[in-house]
């Protein structure tokens, strides 16, 4: 028992657990596991791998949003802009140029960083709720740009991926597991970058600005600059995730440019627990799976046969998710991470009590 306790408190343990989890997820395509009700099929089938990869892409995107909202305390309603920039940017570069995948991604990443720096510098002139509204306005402009310029973006129909210059291993249903591993690599890389940033000096300072901007200024640091660095990093990561999303989905539609898409990210981060990296990851995975399963459930006969006043709400996944979100905000402050923390703390104190009574019995 003491060994377990020592493991729990050791700083290496979470990383070891994480590594183990990653290894487990990495071998899933080679296994034949079924989770009826959770996954649509066995773990090696392309449909399931596609869904899991999609969930990991969302978890990575949620991590980039966690940088803004969880770490820096910046409530942005425009994060979809950078994700869309990555997806659409890569799609357009691959279609209109003969660049190979990696150089094309580098070009798009540079562009995304430049846009994030410019818009970030502008929107950080205001703070709090006004910042939220301004980022929303910029994202809305991006959304309009995508929808209106059909000659470039293919408008409402969405932009299909041109595969001529993409490695053959990433194309086609049979290669879904390669894209799945790519998504896993993406998630791990984004997680490590976010973790590294949170431990860096800039990360500490920006976390301090969230608590007390005045104190940071008194210490002689400029909150504006560290906030801008955070915005640019989050925007760059979101663009990177958008590029993998394009490869995974073989295309992109204007739905990812809308403010609602950013709201989804906000929902994920809050469900997982604001400020928690693991919360963002778990929230992203859970949300995607839930959304997918609820959509399947909505079409099921069990729901379709219900009376109208039950059938209509239950066949709208977003209604259920939105309601769930409200309940979490009102009833579970700290989200899933908060619940986990409280459960662990309770278990620990219970164990400590048990340990103490044992010690007392042992001493005569």
């Amino acid at each position, binding site marked *: 028992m003491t060994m377990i306790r020592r493991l729990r408190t050791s700083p290496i343990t979470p990383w070891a657990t994480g590594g183990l989890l990653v290894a487990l997820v990495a071998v899933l395509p080679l296994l034949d596991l079924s989770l009826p009700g959770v996954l649509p099929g066995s773990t090696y089938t392309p449909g399931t791998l596609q869904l899991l990869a999609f969930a990991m892409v969302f978890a990575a995107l949620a991590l980039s949003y966690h940088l803004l909202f969880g770490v820096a305390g910046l409530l942005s309603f425009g994060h979809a802009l950078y994700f869309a920039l990555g997806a659409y940017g890569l799609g357009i570069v691959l279609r209109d140029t003969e660049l190979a995948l990696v150089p094309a991604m580098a070009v798009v990443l540079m562009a995304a960083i430049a846009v994030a720096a410019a818009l970030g510098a502008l929107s950080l*002139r205001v703070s709090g709720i*006004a910042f939220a509204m301004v980022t*929303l306005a910029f994202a809305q*402009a991006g959304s309009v740009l995508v929808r209106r310029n059909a000659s470039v973006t293919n408008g409402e129909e969405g932009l299909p991926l041109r595969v001529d210059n993409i490695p053959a291993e990433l194309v086609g249903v049979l290669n879904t597991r390669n894209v799945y591993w790519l998504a896993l690599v993406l998630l791990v890389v984004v997680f490590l970058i976010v973790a590294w940033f949170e431990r860096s000096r800039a990360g500490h300072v920006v976390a301090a600005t969230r608590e007390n901007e005045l104190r940071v200024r008194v210490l002689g640091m400029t909150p504006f600059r560290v906030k801008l660095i955070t915005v640019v990093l989050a925007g760059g990561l979101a663009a990177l995730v958008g590029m993998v999303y394009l490869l995974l989905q073989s295309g992109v539609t204007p739905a990812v440019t809308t403010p609602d898409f950013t*709201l989804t990210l*906000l929902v994920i981060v809050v469900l997982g627990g604001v400020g928690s990296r693991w919360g963002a990851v778990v929230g992203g995975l859970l949300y995607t799976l839930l959304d997918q399963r609820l959509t399947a459930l909505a079409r099921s006969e069990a729901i379709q046969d219900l009376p109208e006043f039950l059938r209509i709400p239950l066949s*709208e996944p977003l209604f259920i998710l*939105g309601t769930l*979100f409200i309940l979490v905000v*009102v009833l579970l402050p700290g989200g899933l991470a908060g619940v986990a923390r409280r459960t662990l703390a309770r278990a620990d104190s219970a164990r400590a009590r048990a340990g103490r009574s044992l010690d007392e019995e042992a001493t005569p």
Partner: protein
Amino acid sequence: MSTVLLLLITGLGLGALYFLVASGLSLIYGLMGVLNFAHGSFLTLGAFLGWEVARRMPDGSWLTFGVSILVGAVVGATVATLTELLLIRPLYLRHIEQVLVTVGLSLATVALFEGIWGVDPIYVVGPEWLNDTTDIAGALIPNDRFVLIAAAVIVLLGLVVFLKRTRYGLIIRAGVENRAMVTALGVDVRRAFTLVFAIGGAAAGIGGVLASHYFGYVSPLIGGSLLIFAFIVTVIGGLGSLTGAAIASVVVAVLQQFANFYLGGTGDFMVVALLAVVLLVKPTGLLGSKA
């Protein structure tokens, strides 16, 4: 000349719609520090229920039109009041959580509306006169513009009289400036919170019914699209300032109309560009004191 006049009056009509949404948003933010994402849903529900009542009444009569507007106002005020009492009040002073709850509410309600009324636009019929035009100095102005402008002016005047002449208006004006001090004078400011939600919801509900006649249809997304411009209007006008919201509504909508016509459909971009310029020059907005 007649084109300019048409664009100007159409812009005023659209500005009137923006104002009906933005006035409530701005008051709610100014007094409570809450950015209300559910405001678009108040508008949409007002529009749908206004239409539901109107289609059970004689088509195209003025009475039907008037009743649907009244229904929109009552529905907007009712759901807004319930939202404040059930979701906002329990999270008193926790501003981020309050915003999050309204975000969840807007997502859930839009999905619910899609479930009930479908995603396709539903076309609405108003009095014949609304679809006619009036000749003003050679410009043929669609009549619904005048109704919009009149409605917004009436709401604006009503709000000004309420804020200037009543005790609650006094509490709201003082609360926008310094809420803590209002409570320190022994005033229960929370009752004023419910009231601004009700008033904002009523204005949004009226805006919903009028928007359905302006656009010619109702859809679950009608509120969300207006809400974004209303947000921009409140930032440009200055958060918490009713006059600022009124001025910015007109400026934004007129700019949008002219840019759409003369600059190849760039209206939405010009609005965002205007927002960027205002932020660079005066981050608190035209008449705002809080950033």
